[in-house]
């Protein structure tokens, strides 16, 4: 069965990049640029993986991750933070927020795909 990946990303170009990369690997993608909608999509479609941008227009991706991890039905879905917050201490902060993995922008395509594969098998 095709694996589903939910991409939460507010930059259109980056959304296209992640979508094209995952699509080329044969994954199905769900896309949103808003945190609240991300939660609803996760609930309705039960993706196998979530790629989470941290700086989002309304609600921080960390906040959305917190909600996901507090929900018994959704907490099992791995969340990879893909973020341009790449300064000292950012990774620790984001991992403590409940994200299973952290990829800093700009991404290395190889590392990005390796990390996704690690969670989708």
């Amino acid at each position, binding site marked *: 069965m095709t694996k589903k990946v939910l991409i939460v990303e507010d*930059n259109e*170009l*980056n959304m*296209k*990049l992640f979508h*094209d*990369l995952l699509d*080329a690997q044969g994954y199905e993608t769900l896309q949103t640029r808003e945190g609240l909608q991300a939660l609803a999509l996760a609930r309705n479609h039960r993706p196998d993986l979530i790629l989470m941008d941290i*700086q989002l227009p309304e609600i921080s991706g960390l906040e959305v991750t917190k909600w996901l991890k507090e929900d018994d039905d959704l907490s099992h879905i791995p969340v990879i933070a893909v973020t*341009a*917050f*790449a*300064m000292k201490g950012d990774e620790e902060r984001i991992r403590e927020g409940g994200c299973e993995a952290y990829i*800093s*922008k*700009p*991404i*290395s*395509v*190889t590392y*990005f795909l390796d990390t996704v594969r690690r969670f989708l098998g």
Partner: protein
Amino acid sequence: MAPQSEASGSEASGSEASGPSARRSGGGARLWSLGWAVLVAAGAGLALALFADANPVWITALAIGGLPGLLGALWRPTGLARLSLIGLWATATASAVVLTGGVGGPLSPWCLMPLLVALTLGGGVLDGVLFSLLALVLAAVIGLAAQPPLPHGNVLLLFAVIGAGNVLLAALGAITVARRGSQALTRAQQAEVAELQVLLGDLPHLAVALDRNDGVFAVFGQPLPVMSHASLYGGLAAAAATDADRDRVRAALGEALDHGDSDVTFAPATDPSHRITAALRRTASGGLVAVLRDVTGEAARAPVGGAAFPAIAPGPAPVPAYGAAPVRAASPFAAPIPATVVPAPPPADQTRLLSLTARLAETQVKAKEADQARLRAEEELHAMRDSLLALEAQLKSAHAAHAALETQARAVPTPVFAPPVVAAVSAPAAEAEGRIAALTAQVAALEAARAEAEARGAKAEETLQARSRFLANMSHELRTPLNAIMGFSEIMRARMFGELTPKYGEYAELIHESGRHLMDLISDVLDMSKIEAERFQLDREMFDAREAVSAALRLMRVQAEEVGVNLRGVMPGQPILVDADRRALKQITLNLVSNALKFTPRTGHVTVTTHAVGGLLEITVADTGIGIDPADLKRLGRPFEQAGASGDRARGTGLGLSLVKAFAQLHGGDMSIESQLGEGTAVLVRLPVLAPTPAEGPRQDGGSDTASTGAHRPAPSAVPAPANAEYGHPRVVRMVGRGAPPSDRGAA
């Protein structure tokens, strides 16, 4: 528990039996019923045996009269069912009486049976009496209507014996059963009393029960250390209080008896330094209860003197009544006091009472300890707050002193005002006036300077914070588009979606490379900005400097091979233990090597030497590159400055060297550059970061590359170093950092 008018003995009072005690006598009632049935059956058997021709109607009457006995042996009802059982008895006995000649017949005593049944069942005898009367009336009325034939002779006698004898035996049985029931009742009461006693023993206060004449007959609850129970039993006023307080206590007792309650504080005879408060209440039966409390601590806080223990105004009448000797439990007033009036508890209860009391005391001790700990913590808090305030005050005065100094310093170069003033105005008044004016001006200037300094400080802090925020935001905003640039170009470079023409492939390569360059630039700019904002924090740790340098060399190896330059590392065999920022050390090496590779032509050499020399860690990166023009050397190390023509500059960010210098300075070290145009360049970084180890050992350069060491001896003052085999006569430019070690200056 409702008050009960129970006599001191255990005699059955014939009053109502309460629930539990009635249940306990259930076995007796059943046995009694069975006894009745057996007696009646025996009578019937006797009659049949003696008189074979006995009237079958009479035998039937006996059977009917005995039947409820069998029922009562199986069933012991309560409530309404009890009434129906008694009613059944009444019906059966009345029938038997009617069948045997009515109220005049031999079985007429059986009409008493309902009463006896009610007695055995407990719960009141009134209904029993009523049913007995009913049975009697029934028998009489039916007897009037249909006069049954009376038997003759011996049969009549036998039946009379059966009728009277059975009822007599039944009555004896019923009374026994009833009495046992009421004894059970007394036992239940005793159990409750014992429970109550335990509860009273757990009272957190000392409670005392008294009669009207100050006779204490029971003491319960937490004992007061300063008052023995023995002294209490002597009477609250008569023995427990000191002579001085006796009358006041008596007055309070009288007041409580007259008005329901009163309070009195007195000194106990056993320890007059203490103060005991007694809260007195009159009980429903006219006795008194008192709750005693040691208020010595509380009293101490109140103003000392008689006013602290306001005595209840002695009532005029009752006082003389208390002269009598205390009356003990035998007093007639003792009896009416409710359940609290109990003789000494049985030993088992006493033990329990004591252990409970002990437990309570323990809890109280713990509570007191916790309270003391809290108080101590509060005191410490206060002390801390005080020292904080003192510190603040010190800080303030230090600020003021600083501001004053500043103003003075500013005033020094302009000594314009004072002499002319003194010269012009000679009158003392004018002089004083002038001085006052000068002072006022000085004060105003001081104030202004301080305000300005404060404002500047606040603004600086604000600016720093704004700058940090800006940096974080800028980093984020630059990385976001860079992600698309590098991501898509990497996809193209990898030809993920099919072939590209060679040209487009090359462009993709270039885009990706430029992206990486931009990325490095961003990182460098951020590091630099942080250092300039003095926000860069060194992460100091102990490690082997060789490891950090080796790691950087490994990273640069590929790049060196790409440009065809021979990259070498020279370091001692022993570890060089340093206390420094590992990342900074690696970054220093990376930047220097990266620079060297950029400016060294193919087949050239870049050598990285790591040493511990004279208490310093030295890292030298020497190349056989194009060298640096002496005119450019001065600018190097400043942000964004690069040597050479502008056309060459694209090859670096221009920040690498600035960062190296900044990192060195953050460690208290410095960076220096030696270069000869066309020959090569050597950059030397010296850091006072060697960990103090016992075996620091001699200089480590003995076995290292001879090519570079000579050039890096610290020169006393920017004098060209001795000639070097590889670099000819390199020009030395010293770039001394803030923390340059003093040994540099003294070295010959």
